[in-house]
C-alpha cells in the first residue's frame, strides 16, 4: 500500500469512450516508453515520488543553511538541536494528522499539552514520583491527555458538535484549568530520574528524538497497515459511505480524538523534560504550527487522505527554517513574513509534484 492512502485511489478513471486510431498510437508509444522507465515510474508514483516536493523543500532549506553558515549549520550539534526542537511539535503534529485525515480538526492540542504538563508537575505529582517512581508522572500526563481527547471525541461523535467548536472550547477550558492548577506559575520539575531519562541520550541520539521517531513509526504502521488506519481514512473521505460500509463512525471518531490526546500527553512530557517546567503557557499557538506542518506534509484538510512521512517532513522543514533564521540573526518580523511565504511555497511545491507523480 502506498504511503498516502485514499480509499478511492489506485485505479485511474476508466476511459469513457474508445480512443481513436490516432490516440491508440500515442497511447502505445507512451506505454512503450513507460516500460523502459517502469521501475523509475513506480518509484515516483510511490511514496518517494509523492513526497518528492517535500524532500525538495527540505533540501532547499538545508542547502541555504549550508551555503550561508557552512561552519555552524552542518554540525552534529546543530542537527540535534533542530531534531530536539522538532520532536515535541512533531508528536503533536502526528496526532493532528489522524484527526485531519478523519475529516476533523483539533484546535486544543497546545492547551491539552499545557494541562498535561502542569498536571504532571504539581507538587503532589512530583512528590508521588519521588516516593514511588517517575513513571507516575508519565502516567499522569498520558491520562490527562487521553481524558481531554476522549472528552473532545465524545462531544464531537455523540454530541454531534462540530470539532472546530468542541476543540475551541477545550482550548480555552484546558488552558484555564492549567492556569488554575498551576496558579499561573512555572512549575519546575525536580524529579531527577524523570529529567535524566527524557533528557538523556542513547547512542548519541537524544531520547526526545528517539521518542519522536518511535511515535512516527508506530503512527505510520497504524495509518497504513491496519484496519484502524483504513477506517480513519474512510471516515474522513466520506463518513456516510463509511457508515454504510459497516464502520462504527462515531466510535472511531471518538478513538481518533483520544489518540491525539495521548500524543499531546507524550509531547507534554517531552516539553517538561526540555524546559524542566510544566506551565500553562506551553504550546501556545501549537495548534496552528501543527496544522501548518500537517498541511505542508500533504494531508488533505478536508479529510480522507493522510501521510505520516509528509507530516514529519513538514515539521522538519519548519524546525530547520527557524534554525536557519536564528543562525542568521534575522529579526522576528522578517522571520514571520518569510515563514508565511515559505509555507505557501512548500504547499504549492508539494501539490504540484504530487499531482505529477501519481495524482492526488
Amino acid at each position: 500500500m502506498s504511503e498516502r492512502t485514499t480509499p478511492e485511489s489506485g485505479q485511474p478513471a476508466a476511459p469513457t469512450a474508445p480512443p481513436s486510431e490516432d490516440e491508440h498510437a500515442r497511447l502505445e508509444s507512451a506505454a512503450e516508453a513507460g516500460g523502459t522507465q517502469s521501475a523509475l515510474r513506480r518509484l515516483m508514483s510511490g511514496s518517494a515520488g509523492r513526497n518528492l516536493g517535500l524532500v525538495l523543500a527540505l533540501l532547499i532549506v538545508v542547502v541555504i543553511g549550508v551555503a550561508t553558515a557552512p561552519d555552524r549549520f552542518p554540525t552534529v550539534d546543530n542537527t540535534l538541536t533542530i531534531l530536539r526542537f522538532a520532536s515535541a511539535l512533531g508528536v503533536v503534529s502526528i496526532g493532528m494528522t489522524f484527526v485531519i485525515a478523519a475529516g476533523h480538526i483539533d484546535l486544543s492540542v497546545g492547551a491539552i499539552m499545557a494541562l498535561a504538563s502542569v498536571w504532571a508537575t504539581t507538587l503532589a505529582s512530583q512528590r508521588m514520583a519521588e516516593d514511588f517512581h517517575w513513571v507516575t508522572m508519565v502516567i499522569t500526563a498520558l491520562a490527562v491527555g487521553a481524558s481531554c481527547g476522549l472528552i473532545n471525541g465524545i462531544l464531537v461523535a455523540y454530541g454531534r458538535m462540530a470539532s472546530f467548536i468542541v476543540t475551541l472550547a477545550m482550548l480555552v477550558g484546558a488552558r484555564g484549568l492549567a492556569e488554575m492548577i498551576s496558579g499561573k506559575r512555572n512549575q519546575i520539575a525536580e524529579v531527577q530520574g524523570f529529567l535524566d531519562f527524557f533528557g538523556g541520550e542513547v547512542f548519541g541520539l537524544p531520547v526526545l528524538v528517539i521518542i519522536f521517531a518511535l511515535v512516527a513509526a508506530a503512527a505510520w504502521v497504524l495509518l497504513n497497515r491496519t484496519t484502524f488506519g483504513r477506517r480513519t481514512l474512510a471516515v474522513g473521505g466520506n463518513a456516510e459511505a463509511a457508515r454504510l460500509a459497516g464502520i462504527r463512525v462515531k466510535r472511531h471518531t471518538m478513538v481518533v480524538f483520544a489518540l491525539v490526546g495521548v500524543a499531546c500527553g507524550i509531547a507534554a512530557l517531552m516539553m517538561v523534560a526540555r524546559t524542566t517546567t510544566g506551565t500553562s503557557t506551553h504550546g501556545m499557538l501549537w495548534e496552528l504550527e501543527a496544522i501548518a506542518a500537517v498541511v505542508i506534509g500533504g494531508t488533505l484538510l478536508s479529510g480522507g487522505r493522510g501521510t505520516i512521512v509528509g507530516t514529519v517532513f513538514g515539521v522538519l522543514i519548519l524546525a530547520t527554517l527557524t534554525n536557519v533564521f536564528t543562525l542568521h540573526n534575522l529579526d522576528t518580523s522578517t522571520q514571520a513574513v518569510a515563514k508565511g511565504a515559505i509555507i505557501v511555497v512548500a504547499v504549492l511545491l508539494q501539490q504540484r509534484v504530487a499531482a505529477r507523480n501519481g495524482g492526488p
Partner: protein
Amino acid sequence: MLHSTIHRSPSPRRLLITAGAFAIATALVAGCTSNEPASSDDEGEQQAAGSSNDEMGEEVTIAWSGPEADHGWLAAINSSALDEAEKYDDINLRAAEGTNDASLQIQQVETFINEGVDAIVLLPTDGAALTDIAMEAMDAGIPVVNVDREFSSPFAARTTILGDNYGMGVSAGTYACQLIEEHDIDDPVIAEIAGIDALPLTQDRSDGFAEALSNCGEEVDNRVAAEFTVESGEAEASNLLQAAPEIDIIWNHDDDQGVGVKAAFDNAGRDEFFFIGGAGSCNAMRWIEDGEMEATVLYPPTQAADGIRLARLIAQGKGMSDLVQVAVPRRIVLDAPVVTADNVDQHMERCFES
C-alpha cells in the same frame, strides 16, 4: 487483517459510561493534585515612612483593572495590588477581573465611571486603546492612575507610574560593559534574548541595551526574540547557542522565559558566558544566590501596589509625605537596579514567583 469484518464492540452507551467514569476519576485525581506550597503566613506588616499619610483617612472607593495575570510578573502585579489595598481600612477596593481584551477592559472602566468611584488604577492591556475611556473618566472628575503601560495622551491620567524599560536595557548594557572591563574580555560576543518583539516595551529595552553597549564600543552580535513563555525561551535559546559557538555575555529580557532559557543552557552544557536576566523573579534570584546566574535587572512588580497607594492619596487630597510638594507628582518612573550576588539578599523579599 485488512478485510476484517465488523467487530462486535461495546455499545456506544457502555463506552460513554466508561468515558464518564474516566472523567470522574480524573476529576478525583484533581482533588488530590493540590499545588499548595507551604503557606508563607504573614510577610510582616510593611510600615511606610513615618508620616500621617498612613493614618486612617476618609473612606475612598478605588477601582483596579489590569490585564489577565497570565504569567508570573502580571500575577505578582495583581496580587500585590490587592494586598496593598487590603492593608488600608479606608480603601474600599473594586477589583475587576483581569482581561487581555481591550474592549472588555473599556467596559470595566465604563462601569467604574457609572458607579462613581473615587479613583481608578489602570494597567491597560494596551495603552493607546484605553486612552479615550481614561480621558472620559478624567472628564467625569475621576482621577486615573496609569500603571506601567502608558496612555497615548497626557490628559488621560492624573498620574503615571511606570517601570523603566529603556532604563532596564541601560542597566543591563552598563553592567555588561562593566563585566567586559573587569574581566578584560577582548572582542566580546554579546547575545540578547528579547521578549515579544512587537511590543514597545521590548523595543525600549533593546534600544537601551544597544545604547549602553555603544558607550563602551560594543554591540549586540546575536539577537533572538522569544514570547515571554518558558517554551519559547527554550526554543530560541537553543537555536541561539548554535548560532554562536562562543558567547561572552547574554542578556535575557525576562525571567519568566528565563526558566526555558536556562534549561536550554543546561541541555547544551553551555556556561562559558555571563548570564544576565530581567524582571527579578525568585527563580532568577535563587540562581544568583547559587552562582548559576550573574545578575538580573529589576522591573518591579509592585507598580500597581504603588498605584493603589497613589490613588488613595489623590482621592483623599493628600500629597507624598517625603516630598515638599503638596500634591502627588504627575509622573513617577521606577528605578531598574541590577541585582547581583552582592545585593540579592536585599531584593529577595520583593521577588515574584514565576
